[in-house]
């Protein structure tokens, strides 16, 4: 058999990146103004936005504080845990 040739067929697979949510959970030990301060420090949120999220955590038990790329979400979750906030990651629905 004279020279074989390998044919390659490029395949395009476009998958939309599902955003990841960074979720802060309530922990009664943390002072409310501290939670607000951490959200302002890590995400650069203004006080009004950070306070709103802190109140969600306090009243509803959790708040999605950021959504986006997975690597960044992991970085933020790590930062929040270093600041001793209970934090998890979840794929956005």
């Amino acid at each position, binding site marked *: 058999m004279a020279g074989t040739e390998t044919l390659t067929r490029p395949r395009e697979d476009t998958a939309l990146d599902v955003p990841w949510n960074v979720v802060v959970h309530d922990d009664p*030990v943390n*002072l409310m103004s501290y939670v607000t301060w951490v959200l302002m420090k890590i995400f650069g949120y203004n006080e009004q936005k950070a306070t709103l999220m802190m109140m969600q955590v306090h009243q509803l038990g959790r708040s999605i504080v950021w959504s986006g790329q997975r690597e960044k979400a992991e970085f933020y979750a790590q930062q929040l845990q270093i600041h*001793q906030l209970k934090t998890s*990651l979840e794929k956005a629905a």
Partner: protein
Amino acid sequence: MKLALTAAGGLRIEVEDADDWTLLLGILHDAQSPGFDLASHVGGVMRQSSDWLDWQEFVMPDIRDGYQEHLKVVLTAIESGKLEAAGGPGTLWITRDDAFHWYSSLNQARLAIEELHHFGPGENVDPLQLTPTRAAAFFRSQFYCAIQSFLLDQGLG
């Protein structure tokens, strides 16, 4: 012991005697209570995630190092202050730069106390109904919380 805010945005602690130094060192003892792992406490909510094993292996050690770093700053400050004061009356300064390390260490201590004693919201606790050990832990927790409030009032650096 007396606490006062400083014009530079920090905190001044006037230590009156050896007991006060012991009380301050209690922050470190409480924060490092055996049987309490803060990284697991704050990261435990990730247990449902498929990344949980990786998180435990690769991320949590760094988080633990961060906590230890904060405690080290506070321990050094207290031990230096105690040495300078020869264990007696003296002054301890918490500068703006160190404010977060202090806040973190106090929080670690309070979280550990809560994990071990389950006081819940402080206003619902009657210290007279507690055993001496639990009452002492409760009062330490309240004391740590008071310092934290001062630090927050100063904007935490």
